[in-house]
């Protein structure tokens, strides 16, 4: 037994890592209590979460749904929990949720705004998910600006059709007259013809057509728009109409033409320098003064105009960012192909610049969409305005948090999904470019 040498001949089996390093405990140690500071932060966070949830959860869930007025709510609360504090009265949402969503839009026509929204998503899909949706859908995208007003306002179908015809006429003239009279004159002729059509011919023609072939749906006045629908309407119209204006402004701002440039810069900086609420004051108080005497169209259209101008300035900046992000070589390449300014813009620059601008456009949209709540200050019935109107009903006077909570959730869901989409897009675009 003198041989005390020891040579291990077989490997020991691998030991499990210490229990404190794996599983739940390990995770907790690493992610929550990795240092004293982190431990304190964790404890503080848990405390804060508990404090908030212990107040909010009972309020949300120990609540009354089946009540037709606040006093009824209070009676039920007293009967069930012996106190009226700390319990929500969701009866108001149950009774008024349709109104909060659609405003005063006629009940039997709710399918129209819903269809308009579905079509909007369909029309946007070829742009937003260009890799998954067939580009044939672009036809719908082109037609949407005319379908949407028809669905929302109703009336005769010939109005939107005639408006669309103006574009068709202009386009046809530009395309076919170019060979005969030169591109420039064709362009001018096309624009002039379209303008003549819109201002002189379109009205009577639409009138005549609708008397011959009265196709149409029930008309709805824009005064009846309201609620969450109004916010979406205002946002979509403002962004949609401001996109072309924004492109023109962005190009103008980058242009070498000094006067054009300064007009554009002046407009953009002016709009961006003042709060939206002052522009809404202009819409509600002053726009009628600036227009020819006797002009009088309703407040929602006026607000749409001002919101469009507002978003055009921001849109111009987003598109300018897109233009600036394009490598200089693209411009030079276009020049070297002998394309003129508009050809280069149309075929090379804009398609790329707009594509990189989409995340920016989406976040502008989110911003505008949230800002539509400001119209309640000038007396329009968007969701917040409607909430005040509901509080003025004798049945619901005195109700406060429930309505705001509902509105906040509504906005959160919509804006959050849009911002997630924009993030997804940003990631996708990043891989495209590197």
């Amino acid at each position, binding site marked *: 037994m003198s041989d005390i040498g020891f040579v291990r001949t077989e490997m020991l089996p691998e030991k499990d890592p210490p229990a404190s390093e794996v599983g739940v405990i390990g995770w907790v140690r690493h992610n929550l209590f990795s240092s004293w500071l982190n431990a304190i*932060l964790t404890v503080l966070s848990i405390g804060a979460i508990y404090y908030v949830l212990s107040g909010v959860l009972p309020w949300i869930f120990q609540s009354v749904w089946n009540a037709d007025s606040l006093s009824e709510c209070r009676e039920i609360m007293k009967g069930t929990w012996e106190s009226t504090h700390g319990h929500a009265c969701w009866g108001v949402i149950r009774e008024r949720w349709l109104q909060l969503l659609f405003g005063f839009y006629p009940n039997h026509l709710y399918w129209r705004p819903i269809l308009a929204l579905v079509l909007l998503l369909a029309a946007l899909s070829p742009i937003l998910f260009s890799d998954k949706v067939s580009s044939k859908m672009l036809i719908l995208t082109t037609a949407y600006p005319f379908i949407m007003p028809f669905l929302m306002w109703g009336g005769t179908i010939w109005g939107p059709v005639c408006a669309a015809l103006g574009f068709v006429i202009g386009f046809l003239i530009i395309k076919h007259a170019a060979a005969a009279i030169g591109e420039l004159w064709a362009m001018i002729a096309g624009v002039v013809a379209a303008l003549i059509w819109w201002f002189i011919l379109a009205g009577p023609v639409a009138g005549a057509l609708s008397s011959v072939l009265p196709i149409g749906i029930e008309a709805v006045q824009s005064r009846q728009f309201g609620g969450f629908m109004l916010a979406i309407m205002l946002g979509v119209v403002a962004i949609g109409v401001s996109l072309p204006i924004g492109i023109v402004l962005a190009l103008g701002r980058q242009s070498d033409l000094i006067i054009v440039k300064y007009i554009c810069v002046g407009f953009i900086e002016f709009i961006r320098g003042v709060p939206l609420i*002052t522009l809404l004051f202009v819409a509600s108080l002053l726009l009628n003064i600036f227009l020819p005497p006797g002009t009088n169209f309703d407040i929602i259209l006026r607000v749409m105009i001002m919101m469009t101008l507002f978003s055009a300035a921001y849109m111009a900046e987003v598109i300018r960012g897109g233009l600036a992000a394009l490598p200089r070589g693209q411009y030079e390449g276009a020049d070297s192909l002998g394309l003129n300014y508009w050809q280069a813009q149309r075929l090379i620059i804009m398609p790329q610049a707009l594509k990189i601008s989409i995340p920016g456009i989406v976040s502008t949209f989110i911003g505008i969409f949230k800002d539509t709540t400001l119209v309640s200050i000038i007396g329009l019935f968007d969701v917040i305005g409607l909430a005040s109107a509901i509080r003025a009903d004798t049945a619901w006077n005195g109700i406060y948090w429930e309505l705001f909570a509902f509105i906040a959730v509504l906005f959160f869901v919509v*804006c959050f999904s849009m911002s997630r989409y924009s993030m997804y897009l940003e990631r996708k675009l990043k891989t495209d470019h590197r």
Partner: protein
Amino acid sequence: MSTLTDPPKEQFRLSMLLYDTRYRSATIQVIAMFGFMLLAAWLINNTIINLNTLGKPVAFKFLGETAGYDINQRLLDYNNQDSHLRAAFLGLLNTLVIAFLGCIAATVIGVLVGVLRLSSNWLVARLMTIYVEMFRNVPVLLWIVLIFAIVTEATPHPKVYRGVETGAMVVTNRGTYIPEPLFSRSLGDIHLFGSSPLRFDVSLDLIAILVVLGLSIFASIKMRQRADHIQETTGDRPKTWHMRTAVIVLPILVLLIALGFHLGYPELKGFNFQGGTHLRNSLIALWLALSLYTAAFIAEIVRAGILAISKGQTEAASALGLRPNRTMSLVILPQALRVIIPPLISNYLNLTKNSSLAIAVGYMDITGTLGGITMNQTGRELECVLMLMLVYLGISLTISAIMNWYNEAVKLKER
């Protein structure tokens, strides 16, 4: 874009205005200018005709009339017998106050949250994400209204302090009272602009304090420069911190004693606390709402800025033996700052513009005075709205000028 070699001299023809690139731009500009002036003339003409029909020609006389309403939160003296112009001026100051406080608080919270979102603590990072998403995706108007209500509900009624010894600072549901600086041997005030609506009292005590403080800091900087100089020439750095502290602290201490400086504490008298500086709940709620809302955006900017710094920088810093917090403050943040500042400017502008929603909580900013009660009472919409826009435009342009100047200063100098 396309430049052509100029053709040899030829006779000028009218069609060259359109077809020759040399002249075409001039043509377009003339047409644009003409169109613009036509549009402006059309608008102005309509305005004049309409105002004449209404019998309300543009006049600013109403600004001199008695306002008749009170403003609770104010920096300068004002009573309801002052003019509308004075009320508007106080409103403007209130706008500037909220914008200034808001920008500072939003930056502090935003940077903190942005850094915490990247924290290794899972719970904290998630909480911060929830905070950011909650604030970014709900309209600011809603937040202002909600936070106003929450602040009011969460703070105690003044009557709970009855018979209780209150400290220097009192938080009630009517606002927060903080001690006010008082001077028993005050130097008095300078009355700027006499008794005009823009009168502005500047406390001489404040000027004296600022002057002394400025001189002390100047002296302290000089001392440090001398120390640097000595270090460069001899290699030894003389200890200066005690001298520098003394230079800053002692003169101001002497001055404060000489002026008889003491703090005025709030005291419960009658319905409310008296004395101290009273920050109304409307101010606090608006401040909180605007800075929390904007901070959510700033946090995202800060996070993006930090993530934009390549990982190699962090690794290099740890290789040099810097601790994580030193890495953050010495290596990452200074570089991230360059990415952060441009979007930060536009967030400051947004905060300032959003402060116009102060009317939702009854904080009397310029929209509440000039664009609110004054406009209601006088019926001078055109004048009030135009003035309001010009004021905001002025503030916005000033902020962007200052911040752009700062941006130039910290920008990476490329050679």
